[in-house]
């Protein structure tokens, strides 16, 4: 009855997620990037809630809560604090070749849909059509990490990749077992703390968070 509607909503949210991934790919201001990331987390929470509601998978409510707390509240807050402490709040990154990046992104999306096709045909979940989008989000986040030269946007790319993976887990399987999701959340959180420490170390050493300084180690 309400299943078709639910899957329509999920598809809509998936599309929003993909759109946000593209927006992050081309966003130059660090502050806006963090807000986009928080928005992505919110979309993820909503779609998980819809899946949980429409399929009666109770453990998804917990993982939606976990996502909300971690990716909408804690991580953006930590990032905001970090960029304030590091004085990079108003930093604008010069991105070269935004159109080319977008084109590469579109190619990646097509690739992702093709790779995901055989699996989504086998998946019995109502969310199966979104697996391609999930993989596309992972690949776009990956592209973002490659194209950025500042440390903070690279890390946001890393976290966005984790968002994509989480979305893949809900769309292919209605989420991983709870104990694993807690473990992943813990890893992400600890990773973020370590990176925070790391940012200060890099800054202290190089007076900048530009990772182009970090290209000295090469094969002769």
């Amino acid at each position, binding site marked *: 009855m309400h299943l078709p509607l639910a899957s329509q909503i999920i598809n809509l949210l998936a599309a929003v997620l993909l759109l946000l991934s593209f927006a992050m790919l081309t966003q130059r201001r660090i502050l806006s990037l963090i807000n986009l990331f928080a928005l992505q987390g919110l979309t993820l929470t909503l779609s998980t809630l819809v899946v949980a509601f429409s399929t009666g998978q109770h453990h998804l409510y917990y993982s939606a809560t976990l996502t909300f707390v971690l990716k909408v509240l804690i991580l953006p807050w930590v990032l905001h604090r970090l960029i304030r402490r590091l004085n990079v709040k108003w930093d604008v990154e010069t991105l070269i070749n935004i159109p080319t990046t977008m084109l590469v992104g579109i190619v990646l999306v097509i690739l992702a849909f093709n790779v995901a096709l055989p699996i989504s045909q086998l998946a019995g979940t109502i969310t199966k059509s979104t697996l391609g989008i999930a993989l596309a989000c992972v690949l776009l986040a990956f592209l973002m990490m490659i194209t950025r030269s500042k440390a903070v946007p690279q890390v946001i790319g890393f976290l966005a990749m984790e968002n994509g993976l989480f979305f893949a887990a809900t769309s292919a399987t209605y989420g991983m077992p709870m104990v694993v999701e807690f473990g992943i959340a813990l890893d992400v959180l600890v*990773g973020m703390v370590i990176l925070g420490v790391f940012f200060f170390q890099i800054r202290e050493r190089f007076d900048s968070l530009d990772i182009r300084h970090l290209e000295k180690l090469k094969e002769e």
Partner: protein
Amino acid sequence: MNWQLYLVLGTPLLGGVLLALWGHKRWAAELNIAMSVSTFIAAAALTAEIISNGPVITADEQFFVDSLNVFLVALTAFVSMTTSLFSRPYMRIEHAHGKLSDNRLRLFHSMYQLFVFTMLLVLLTNNLGILWVALEAATLTTVLLVSLYRTPASLEAAWKYFILCGVGIAQALFGTILLYSASEKVLGAGSGALLWTHLSAVAGSLEPTVMSLAFVFLLVGYGTKVGLVPLHNWLPDAHAEGPTPVSAVLSGLLLNVALYALLRCKVLVDGALQAPFASHLMMGFGLLSVVVAAFFLSRQKDIKRMFAYSSVEHMGLITFAFGMGGPIANFAGLLHMTVHSLTKSAIFFAVGHAAQKAGTQIMDDIRGLMKVSPTVGWGLMLGSVAILGLPPFGVFASEFLILTSAMRQQPWATPFLLIALGVAFAAVFSKVQPMVFGETTAKRLPHPPALIPVFAHLGIVLVLGFYIPPYLVDWYRVAAKLIG
């Protein structure tokens, strides 16, 4: 109840907490050793238990010990114990040279124990999801260890390590999700569907398309941590720029543990596919790693970088052996995992002291170690000879087995392997020889170096070259059969 298992996991975890509190004290190194020795004793007790009573599944099936992981648990506990013995004087010398503050020492000790804990968790868990979580945690604990000196180069190495391994391991998570989506159809949702013992029981009915795609992602993900070419870029930097005890455990243990994760997945994929898909991929990546790393060896200037490339080469060789499959190749692969781990960590111990004496890691500036310290010189020389696969060391036995099974099963690969091993031999030997013999530039150290671990490791490798104890042979046989 299986108290040995909890002790194996609990001791390093407790050690991590205690050393986070007291890691800067004068006796922290001794506490570190005490915790590592206790872990090893617990691991030995666990091993004895497995030998007498067979495989163990415990704690609601969350932990699983069989002959494949028990020997790796023992090896991990042993090498982490000897590394803690080595790190005591090594880190004191670094401290005396003013390279490290008290707080950094605390960080080192605490993270070292937590790192050992995460590796043991990877080995002992039955849940493939937890396995992923623990392997990611192993990366996180070592990131700050690689950047311990806070030099520009070490920060760069740590950043590269974090980003590359993070991205790699994200691929492995995607692979795990796919694996779960395949298994959930057979086993039903819930955490039972990620338990390896359940999965391997129903491997034949898992969806082959999903499983093969999952394996590609898992191979890329865990392969990054194993250091397979072309995903190896983080490895030489992390090994060269981190403190030497960290290089020793990264090379000797972490690479093994990542390979173990890959092997567990390979068993499932082989069962699902009934085709040598995973084997072909592993052989390809393995052979490429052996050849590429061998040619990179001769171009290195930094001694730790060179031995890091040697690790890439040997992990490639092991991956290739497991890719070939069959009882003999798998046996050789397991033996090679053991001897490589022991030999490589022994080499890093010797290299660490050699670099401290010479005051540099650049090989051209390290000369005549034999004159100033015969033990360091002999340790480095014997270690190099052992890792290059000269008889009578154990590495010779395993490489010989790998080569002969390659001739039988994959004759096309043999020339590549032989050329690579020859090139590696020439490269390493020609660089080590002048470092050990000749006139010296080295100086005395403020603390006497720890060389017992070096010779203990090399002694075991030497013995394994002559004689492998029957229970070890049985383990390897059973484990080799398990891998298929």
